[in-house]
């Protein structure tokens, strides 16, 4: 018999500062942040490619820093600010990175895009004028199978130049 059914599933009430809003939810303590975001909170913009911490697809920002949501338990980040792709645009206006990705075709199938965008956002906040090598290094943990990364690189550079100019 499987073991998990034999015991009580421990649940916890967790509070997060999610995309600037306070949210509170009850979930099994072993459920990952990725699962809670997608299944309990309806934020399906965060994607998953492996659920083992290998592909970077499920990246979210915690305290502004990229974290793999498939490896994070909500209790670990209780009370801390979490940013998902849904929190990246300011209302109707895209973040400059989002605009550049859409404009240059950096999203083809688009599945890796949320993770890429959030890592790039964190990079540009720490380093507004990154070199090509710095962009490549920052995004090296996020796999993309469509683009060959070329348009993603161009889009990050374009967004960076626009953000510095404004």
């Amino acid at each position, binding site marked *: 018999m499987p073991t998990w059914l034999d015991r009580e599933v421990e649940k916890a009430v967790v509070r997060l500062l999610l995309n600037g809003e306070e949210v509170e939810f009850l979930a099994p303590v072993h459920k990952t942040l990725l699962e809670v975001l997608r299944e309990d909170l309806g934020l399906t913009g965060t994607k998953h490619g492996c659920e083992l911490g*290998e592909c970077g697809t499920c990246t979210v920002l915690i305290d502004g820093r990229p974290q793999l949501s498939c490896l994070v338990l909500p209790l670990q980040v209780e009370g801390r600010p979490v940013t998902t792709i849904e929190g990246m645009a300011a209302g109707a206006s895209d973040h400059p990175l989002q605009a550049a990705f859409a404009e240059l075709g950096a999203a083809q199938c688009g599945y890796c895009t949320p993770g890429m965008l959030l890592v790039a956002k964190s990079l540009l906040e720490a380093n507004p004028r990154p070199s090509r090598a710095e962009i490549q290094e920052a995004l090296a943990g996020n796999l993309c199978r469509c683009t060959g990364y070329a348009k993603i690189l161009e889009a990050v550079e374009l967004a960076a130049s626009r953000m510095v100019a404004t």
Partner: protein
Amino acid sequence: MTVPDRTGSVGRSYPRLDGSAKVRGQAVYADDIALPRMLHCKILRAQAPHARILSIDASAARRLPGVVAIITGRDLPIRFGILPVSQDEAALEEHKVRYVGDPVAAVAAVDEETAAAACEAIEVEYELLTPVMTIEEALKEATDEPIQESFSRRRDNIHRLVSYEFGDLEAGFAAADHVREDVFFFQGNTHLPMEQHSAIASHVDGRLTLWSSTQVVHYVHRALSRVLELPMNRIRVIGAVHGGGFGGKTDPFAHEIVVGKLAMLTGRPVKCTLTREEVFYAHRGRHPTLLWYRTGVTRDGRITAMHLRTALDGGAYGSYGAASVFYTGTLQTVTYDIPAYKFEGVRVYTNKAPCGPKRGHGTPQGRFGIELHLEKIAHELGLDPVEVKRRNFVKPFSRTVNWLRVTSCGLEECTAKVLEASGYAQRERRTGHGMGFAISAYMSGAGTAIYWNDMPHSEVQVKVDRTGATVYCGAMDIGQGSDMVLAQIAAEELGIEPRDVRLVTADTDLTPVDLGSYSSRVTFMAGNAALEAARKMRALLVEAVADRMGVADLEEIDVGGGRIGEFSFEEACVIATTRFGALSTTGSYKPPRIGGPFKGSGVGPSPAYSYSAAVVDVEADPRTGIVTVGKVWIAHDIGRSINPLLVVGQVEGGVYMGLGEALMEEQEYRKGLHKWPSMLEYKSPTFLDTPPIETFLVETIDPEGPYGAKEAGQGPLLPVIPAVNAAVFDALGVWVDETPITPEKVLRALDAKAKGKPPRHGPRSFPAVPYGEPIRVDPPARDDLRVGAELEAAFGQTPGAH
């Protein structure tokens, strides 16, 4: 060709229509869908590579709280498969498993965890059989029983054998000054789409609806109907936003059928999303392939005859394999003029995840072999490999020895572009640095449907009413941007902007049939159908507007800039609806018959071939064997670039994927187990591994493509792989005659060279295969470009198959 330059949207770079949804996390992929009362499905998969199922006991699993239904092979006994000749799969296997990962039972439960726990609680008793893990083993008589008893020949594990001789091979070799033989191995690899396959089914009012991450809603529709024994009119298949295919989501899959069955049994929606490990088992990727080439050439390097043998490791099921085996041999003649050509191919069953179509489908293996083989011939003759290849280039508008019709062909221009841009002729020559050059061709859609019928391959409807224009097409945008191409074509003809065209795609209830997103066919075939439908609609709008304006000559009515004649497009829609009533036009595309008068001539013909040429620059470290690609220059003959932004995206993606196959990607097995079914261990190029790519688009304006367009999704991958190997030879003077070029193989080749052995690493021999007598086919006249009924009528008069 005199196709006038377009003034509207065709030829302009537009970002994709769903770009904003994708950057905002609003695009709804299959796994993002959740329906009320939805159950979650997990599939129990075989843990033995080859075994008989003696019993399945699900009684303990059924008792688990939260388990709603469990099904086994008994519930889904009807076998299916993508090709009519290979109906060799079951959604759940009842009597036998053929690879680790083969589906055996499925659970629907209240959540994923319960479903997984129930799978663990199902007891399956197996009788283990000897696994067959290599091509060589598969060619021998089976130890206990063949993997696929009903589909194998005799007592071995041979799935398909093909053998053809086009023209007089013996005379061709007799005319040669020099004959060379080489053996190559192309390792298997997988698509690795970022999105794990997912399907969700709902059964309401006796009708089944399935959302899936598929490349072809029509093929899923057919398989569901067959296995679930439902008429097609009771099934609706909808393509969810697609998270990457590359060929890997072109077959109907067990999980799609299983959730359909479970939804019918439980009366609740059921979803199944594969784990990443399961995606490796679903596979349908590149066939590991051995290749043996024997070619005769004249002193100046002109090919007089070529003999190719291939052997494909197919894995446990047929999939597209009966076609894949042809594709390893058919397209060599579309780039090089080969006066006499013998091709023999075999595909075997092994106890591995089934192979199928991956970007390039069967042709990257053959392309890898022929490019390196010609390089070696050139070096042996003391000739420049680029010149040898050039001397043998096919001529535009000609017919090949195996009856394929070549139309537009930009090989020369592509070659000139990359040679010039890379400075290939003046490259720095030092140990450890090299450049390699290779070319390729690919089909703009297969000329023959995968199941026999005489219907169109693409059907499109255009509807106009007082609210504007809508295009309906069954094709699935898998990220390549095919929706945008359809919108641009409609917009071009109707004189409006692409964003003003509404699109309904990949929904079998709403859209007419299209054979889907594979075979590089959507722009060409669905594009041609959309063009026809849109032109008919334009004619109706123009006629109504001319009538209203009192203009007799329809030519005087200008269409463009959102206007038709003196009216806005919206006004024209009202005028035309007032004049004609409901407005709907249709377009269809069916490729003409191109293949010759012999059995098997249906694989290889395409209405047009794209061409590519690439130069790859590498640093290859003789101490470590590590190969680093510095830059790739690629030129692609796209026919006409309908949307340069999207085309360049396809080319760059293809180059990247080719580099992965060349340098690191491999689907490898150990003791019956997949060696690395995870993204960490299955190495694919990261941001840091991917070099700058400089792309040149060459436009040759094909007479049959929409506005002259040809394909871009697959061809550009092909030349990259052999160009890397050629560059390594240029850098170190050793050949790695297989993929991927790992540091170990480079060092082994250097070691062989140091010991005075042939300076190479790769397979030494090709196994004996009972190919049998070839089908002998007389070549066509090289300038015979007839197709369709005209060609068929000529078969009676021309000497065809013996």
